[in-house]
């Protein structure tokens, strides 16, 4: 349900305005109608500061998460003397220092790797020798190009041999200039020891900086408080800026929305301090903010509705109506009672022992979805990929007695006595045997009795196995659910029309509903053999005639009759193609359920193969089952969530005439 809102216009004397805004903010129920305004420099600066707070807090949270610390478990902000802005500045400085250190470390390590082959040497000595006419030249050459005779020919000393390269130094008097066929390299300007000590310095400094950053992270609550205060300041500034100033800026005009149930809080305050105000119901053109108020069950589904859009103010909130459909559709798509049980058990455990209060509603929603999956899994007879319909069939003397008591003719019973005592693994094999004994017609006529009379390998299933739907029936059930949701949606559309305009605007939609239901009853009844064709002919014509008038002449009661008729014709085209497409869309319920069940079944089949392995077999069997079913469950849950969403937002919302586009109610508060 959408909470009714009242529009308030306040006229406040300028000297009183600041105090008035503060009090309105304390009460915290007014959704201010913002007018276009030009942002001041202060507002711009504050917004950018707010961004800095947000990014700093998020970086610090990551730091805490890496150390497995819950931000909530830290610090009492009341006792701290540090203010948020100082912490923010410190964080920025340390962050910059850390970045600088990291850059330096990268370049120093690069230099170190170039110096490393030359070992530790004294650069000053090399330079002083060069001044005394003895220069050092550094060379690198690949090992196979290095000529060992060079050591006799030239004053060289091999320093190192690494990765197929020979590093050597030539010592020559300044007058000489030896030519050697090797690559001469620049003499590294820093020695190994120097570089090492510089690296140590930056590493140690980074450790210090990281400790300081950890220290700041421990005071994250201070930053959170500062951020919230700043957000409050920005909101306050925005409200002030969007205030209309009248009478030489001496009177302030502010407009806002207040939920009807809370309006006395503000009006009492205004009466007390003598602020003038006008209040009234929203007009058609008003963009009223939306606050939803649903019962405990429907409230859980509000986040799902918000994924698409909030309803417009004039509409009926569909949350409570989409909830049961979404639940059942999720169960249909996942369609495995075992998976449903797993979800329910895990979530219940998590909710009871581990979950924080803010995610409990979501977990409750998942519990409902798990329960729906158990229900739909039982309908389709699937438990962890095992199809309960294929759990063995055996007819015995008791079965024959049951058949006789169920009014199955004696000649049929005597014909099937040939298969009494035979065991059939699957339902198809069992039916094939019956069909072989009594013919397909007899089987179709007494299918239910044959299902009930056969004994399963698991006696616990005997009492309800005949209720389980096979694939064909699940296919049909998906279409039936679809038809039901579409008709329900049309009902919502008619209700919306009545609420927003008047009954006459809903006549066309109601006519469509009557036509569809009527055709299903009459033509479906005739096809199913409940009525004769002759019997339904006249009622069908009457139905078409009556609903046709509603559809064609009441399509748009605000337009003249010819335009309404033309719109009605177009509506017939849209409806004929639309309903068919929409119905087909519901096949996804069946398809997802079936594909999930098949995957589960395949996992079981492969796992059973492991049992033939000696000793390790049972262990591998269990491990494979757990991993396999976990993967199938995760994949299927994704589909089971997304596809009902689409059915809700496209098929259901379309047929409900849902417009949406409502903006959330956000009161001006601290």
């Amino acid at each position, binding site marked *: 349900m959408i909470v009714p809102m009242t529009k308030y216009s306040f006229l406040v004397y300028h000297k009183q305005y600041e105090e008035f805004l503060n009090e309105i903010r304390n009460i915290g129920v007014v959704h201010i109608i913002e007018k276009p305004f030009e942002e001041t420099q202060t507002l711009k600066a504050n917004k950018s500061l707010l961004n800095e707070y947000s990014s700093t807090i998020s970086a610090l949270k990551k730091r805490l998460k890496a150390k497995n610390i819950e931000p909530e478990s830290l610090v009492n902000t009341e006792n701290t003397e540090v203010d948020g802005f100082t912490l923010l500045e410190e964080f920025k400085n340390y962050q910059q220092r850390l970045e600088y250190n990291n850059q330096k470390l990268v370049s120093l390590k690069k230099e170190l790797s170039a110096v490393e082959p030359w070992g530790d040497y004294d650069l000053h000595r090399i330079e002083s020798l060069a001044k005394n006419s003895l220069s050092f030249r550094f060379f690198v050459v690949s090992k196979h190009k290095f000529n060992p005779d060079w050591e006799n020919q030239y004053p060289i000393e091999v320093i190192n041999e690494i990765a197929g390269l020979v590093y050597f130094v030539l010592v020559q008097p300044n007058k000489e200039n030896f030519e050697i066929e090797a690559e001469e390299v620049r003499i590294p300007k820093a020695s190994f020891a120097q570089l090492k000590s510089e690296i140590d310095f930056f590493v140690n400094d980074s450790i210090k900086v990281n400790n300081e950053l950890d220290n700041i992270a421990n005071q994250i609550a201070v930053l959170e408080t500062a951020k919230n205060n700043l957000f409050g300041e920005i909101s306050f500034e925005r409200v002030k800026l969007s205030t209309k100033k009248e009478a030489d800026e001496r009177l302030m005009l502010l407009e806002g929305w207040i939920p009807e149930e809370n309006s006395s809080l503000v009006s009492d305050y205004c009466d007390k301090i003598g602020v003038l105000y006008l209040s009234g119901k929203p007009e058609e053109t008003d963009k009223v903010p939306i606050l939803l108020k649903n019962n405990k069950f429907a409230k859980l589904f509000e986040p799902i509705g918000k*994924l*698409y859009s909030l309803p417009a103010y004039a509409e009926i909130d569909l949350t409570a109506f989409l909830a049961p459909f979404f639940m059942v559709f999720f169960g249909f798509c996942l369609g495995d009672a075992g998976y449903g049980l797993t979800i329910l058990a895990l979530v219940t455990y998590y909710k009871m022992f581990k979950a924080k209060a803010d995610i409990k509603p979501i977990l409750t929603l998942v519990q409902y979805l798990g329960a729906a999956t158990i229900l739909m899994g039982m309908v389709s007879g699937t438990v962890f990929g095992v199809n309960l319909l294929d759990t063995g069939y055996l007819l015995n003397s008791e079965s024959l007695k049951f058949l006789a008591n169920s009014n199955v003719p004696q000649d049929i019973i005597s014909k099937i006595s040939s298969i009494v005592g035979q065991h059939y693994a699957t339902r198809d094999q069992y039916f094939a045997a019956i069909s072989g004994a009594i013919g397909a017609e007899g089987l179709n006529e007494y299918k239910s009795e044959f299902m009930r009379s056969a004994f399963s390998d698991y006696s616990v299933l005997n009492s309800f196995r005949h209720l389980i739907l096979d694939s064909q029936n699940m296919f049909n059930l998906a279409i039936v659910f679809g038809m039901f949701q579409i008709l329900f949606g049309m009902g919502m559309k008619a209700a919306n029309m009545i609420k927003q305009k008047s009954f006459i605007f809903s006549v066309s939609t109601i006519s469509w509903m009557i036509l569809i239901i009527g055709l299903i009853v009459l033509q479906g009844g005739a096809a199913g053999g409940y009525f004769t064709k002759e019997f339904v002919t006249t009622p069908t014509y009457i139905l078409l005639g009556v609903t046709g008038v509603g559809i064609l002449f009441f399509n748009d009661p605000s337009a003249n009759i010819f335009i309404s008729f033309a719109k009605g014709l177009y509506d017939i085209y849209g409806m004929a193609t639309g309903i068919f497409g929409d119905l087909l869309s519901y096949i*996804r319920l*069946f*398809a997802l359920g079936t594909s999930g069940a*098949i995957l589960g079944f395949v996992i079981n089949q492969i796992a059973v193969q492991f049992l033939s392995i000696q000793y390790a077999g049972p262990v591998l069997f269990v491990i494979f089952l757990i991993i396999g079913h976990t993967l199938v469950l995760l994949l299927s849950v994704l589909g089971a969530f*997304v596809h009902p969403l689409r059915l809700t937002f496209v098929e259901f919302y379309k047929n409900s005439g849902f417009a949406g586009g409502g903006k959330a109610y956000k009161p001006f508060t601290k």
Partner: protein
Amino acid sequence: MENVTVILAYTGLVLMVLLTGIGSAVGTVMGGNATVGAMKKKDDAFGSYMLLSALPGTQGLYGFGGFFIINSKGIISASMNMTQALAILAAGVILGVVGLISAVRQGQVCANGINAIGNGHDVFGNTMILAVFPELYAIIAFATTFIISQSL
């Protein structure tokens, strides 16, 4: 002639699993690539990226499901008739081609959604809804395969 029916039937099964598998592989890669890019800009939305990347994975499963439904009928043998073989081939072509194209296109929708989320737009719900539009046709193709298998 007997071999021809078996070849046609298995060709159908090959197309069914092969094309849908390729489609899903390409579709999920598109999502994965977009995720890697988007992680640079916004790394706290990995959950949304992963869910969207996984969406085009279902077509491959429909292909496998279709293969399983037909294969478990146990009719593919030298004694099957030409109509049955052609029906299986037709199912393979329908599910294979529709699955391939819908998975690739779905992957594109998901990748664009991931890019948009990375750029700070809150379009996760909208992308999920739009991304399952092309999947409907793979579902219809899977249902068609199911109906064909019932009549075999």
